[in-house]
């Protein structure tokens, strides 16, 4: 769910920021701190559970912040700030309906099964529930795509640093990769999670001054709205749902059904509940209550992220003295939508604060990279290497394998980054590829959790059919643009809208095929259901505890707050 700032490549001579010595001191301290954390945690990382699941001893707060931070990549921050400049507050849907219901659903409905089954990964759950074929399909696709995405992100980071600061591409790629590789190899998930939480705070402290100072300059929210209306007469940038009654009445070219069913019910559910990169953080929780609370705590912070991402985009519409343009219209001296966040940072932040802002961007990149490699090493070691290459080995062997494949995974990512550097158009395809697997996987996992009748053959067939159909729809629209009217229900649909509907159809196909094949086949006689399926699992009750300690109470508060936000910005 990120937008690459590819356009930044177009004018590499136009540096947005000019850091001073103090800014470099701040950046060097950051690198020293993340490495120090890695070295400090090495002595605590001895077993497989330590390395791959952070010893399962994280509190709800740490797991929850890490859960959100793993997703708070810099491409997300810059891309969605750019989208806010382009589409207005509509971009906030990706933080609210595109995240909050799914996070609450993960905490309350799905987490008990992930946690009680003692699985180490999402493919690990599929192995317990459906057997090896479904697990292997999911593990191979996840490992492949994760490492490729990591390469794409690495290249994008180097590109951003080159354009913003004039840094050399190779230096950016190697320095950041070696740093991440070192601290993850040393401390495993312990180290990744600790650094993600540190990075979370740096991102907030580094970015929060932009909306604060921006609102002061614009004269508050009402002043900002007035300035936007003055700068862009006749366009509605500040309403969430109002402009979505028709495909043509909003700049995104999307109908509210696409947002509710495609984004809210399919893509976000798939991403937040089955993408192992984020789920792994919650699996590190110290007990079931912490595991249930972690995504719910994360949802409150996720709801607040538009303050540092969407609001700067809107403020850019109000206060920037020039207009930003789409990537396709960039000329020398111009800036693209995706540059709005660094432009706003440079507008308000002098020496020191600028270094903090740059550190926040670097922290976002590195937390995403660490998330990718730690998830990759777990899935490779536990879901591919152990079942298919070496079934029984001492725990220390798997820890060593995890450490090695962290570094090897990073080297493959670096290779992918250089391939992308040669063929930049690959980036768009890689990002689309990742979305192919997410929506069908959610269909497979949720059906498996809810119904005993779903068989391994049905799950495998459904996952394969959903994934293949998603790829077919993507290729169809690429080769024959008139197919857009069928796939996305409107020929006016933009790429984001097309993604919504493609996810929805692939999910429906996955669910339908899974159900039909399951009813035509018989479950295995020795199939285990306890701890894996609703109705066959005794989920411990929350007992006689105070309301304020119940995850379900906070889930209700999060959903109520989410609804209030929709009403305020309707």
């Amino acid at each position, binding site marked *: 769910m990120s937008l690459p700032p590819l356009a930044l490549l177009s004018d590499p001579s136009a540096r947005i920021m000019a850091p001073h010595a103090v800014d470099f001191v701040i950046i060097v301290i950051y690198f020293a701190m993340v490495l120090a954390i890695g070295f400090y945690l090495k002595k605590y990382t001895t077993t497989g559970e330590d390395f791959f699941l952070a010893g399962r001893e994280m509190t709800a707060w740490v797991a929850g912040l890490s859960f959100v931070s793993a997703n708070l990549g810099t491409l997300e921050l810059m891309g969605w700030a750019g989208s806010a400049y382009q589409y207005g507050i509509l971009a906030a849907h990706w933080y609210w309906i595109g995240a909050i219901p799914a996070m609450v659903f993960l905490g309350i409905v799905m987490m008990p099964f992930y946690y009680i089954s003692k699985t180490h990964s999402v493919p690990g759950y599929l192995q317990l529930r459906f057997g090896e074929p479904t697990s292997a399909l999911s593990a191979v696709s996840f490992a492949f795509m994760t490492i490729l995405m990591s390469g794409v992100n690495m290249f994008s980071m180097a590109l951003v640093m080159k354009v913003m600061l004039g840094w050399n591409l190779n230096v950016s790629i190697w320095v950041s990769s070696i740093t991440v590789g070192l601290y993850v190899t040393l401390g495993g998930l312990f180290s990744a*999670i600790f650094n993600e939480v540190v990075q979370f705070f740096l991102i907030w402290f580094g970015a929060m001054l932009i909306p604060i100072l921006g609102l002061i300059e614009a004269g508050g929210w009402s002043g900002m709205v007035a300035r936007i209306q003055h700068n862009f007469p006749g366009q509605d940038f500040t309403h969430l749902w109002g402009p979505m009654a028709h495909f043509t009445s909003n700049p995104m070219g999307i109908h509210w059904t696409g947002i509710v069913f495609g984004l809210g019910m399919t893509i976000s559910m798939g991403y937040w509940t089955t993408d192992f990169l984020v789920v792994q953080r919650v699996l590190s929780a110290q007990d079931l209550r912490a595991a249930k609370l972690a995504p719910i705590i994360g949802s409150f912070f996720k709801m607040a992220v538009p303050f540092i991402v969407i609001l700067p985009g809107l403020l850019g519409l109000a206060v920037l003295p020039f207009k930003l343009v789409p990537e396709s219209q960039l000329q020398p001296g111009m800036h693209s939508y995706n540059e709005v966040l660094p432009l706003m940072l440079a507008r308000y932040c002098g020496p020191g*604060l600028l270094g903090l802002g740059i550190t926040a961007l670097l922290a976002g990149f590195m937390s995403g990279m660490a998330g990718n490699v730690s998830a990759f090493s777990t899935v490779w070691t536990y879901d591919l290497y152990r079942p298919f290459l070496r079934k029984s080995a001492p725990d220390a062997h798997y820890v060593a394998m995890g450490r090695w494949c962290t570094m090897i995974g990073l080297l493959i990512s670096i290779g992918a980054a250089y391939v992308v550097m040669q063929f930049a158009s690959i980036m768009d395809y890689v990002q689309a590829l990742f979305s192919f697997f997410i929506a069908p996987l959610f269909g497979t996992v949720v059906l498996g959790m809810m119904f005993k009748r779903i068989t391994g053959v049905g799950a495998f067939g459904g996952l394969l059919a959903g994934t293949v159909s998603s790829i077919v729809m993507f290729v169809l629209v690429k080769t024959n643009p008139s197919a857009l009217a069928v796939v996305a229900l409107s020929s006016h649909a933009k790429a984001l809208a097309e993604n919504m509907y493609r996810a929805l159809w692939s999910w429906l196909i996955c669910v339908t095929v899974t159900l039909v094949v399951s009813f035509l086949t018989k479950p295995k006689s020795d199939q285990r259901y306890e701890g894996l399926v609703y109705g066959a699992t005794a989920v411990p009750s929350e007992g006689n505890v105070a309301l304020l300690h119940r995850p379900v109470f906070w889930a209700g508060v999060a959903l109520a707050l989410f609804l209030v936000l929709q009403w305020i910005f309707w």
Partner: protein
Amino acid sequence: MDPGWEGALQEKLQSSLDRGGKGPTKRTAVDVVDPRPHKHHMLPVWFFIGLILLIYGVIICGTGIYELSHPPVTVLANLHAPIWWGAIMVAAGASQVNKYRPGKIRP
């Protein structure tokens, strides 16, 4: 699952229910799914967060004071954001470092 898991579950569940949800640990019945005690006694992540916020706060606040005589060419430079933002970071960082510093006995 661990051998003896069910026994430990029952024991802790009963203990939790006996306390009626009250008591010094404030643990709930769902906590007992994995009753294994913590193995590690490492410094909490909050210490590291506090440390880096404290260091950054001092640097940024110091830069802000320097900028009183050498104002930067940024919008709203007259608000002296580095001074108060740096001070907020120092306060937040120092409180966490003090609370979680090595050697301090925690419950």
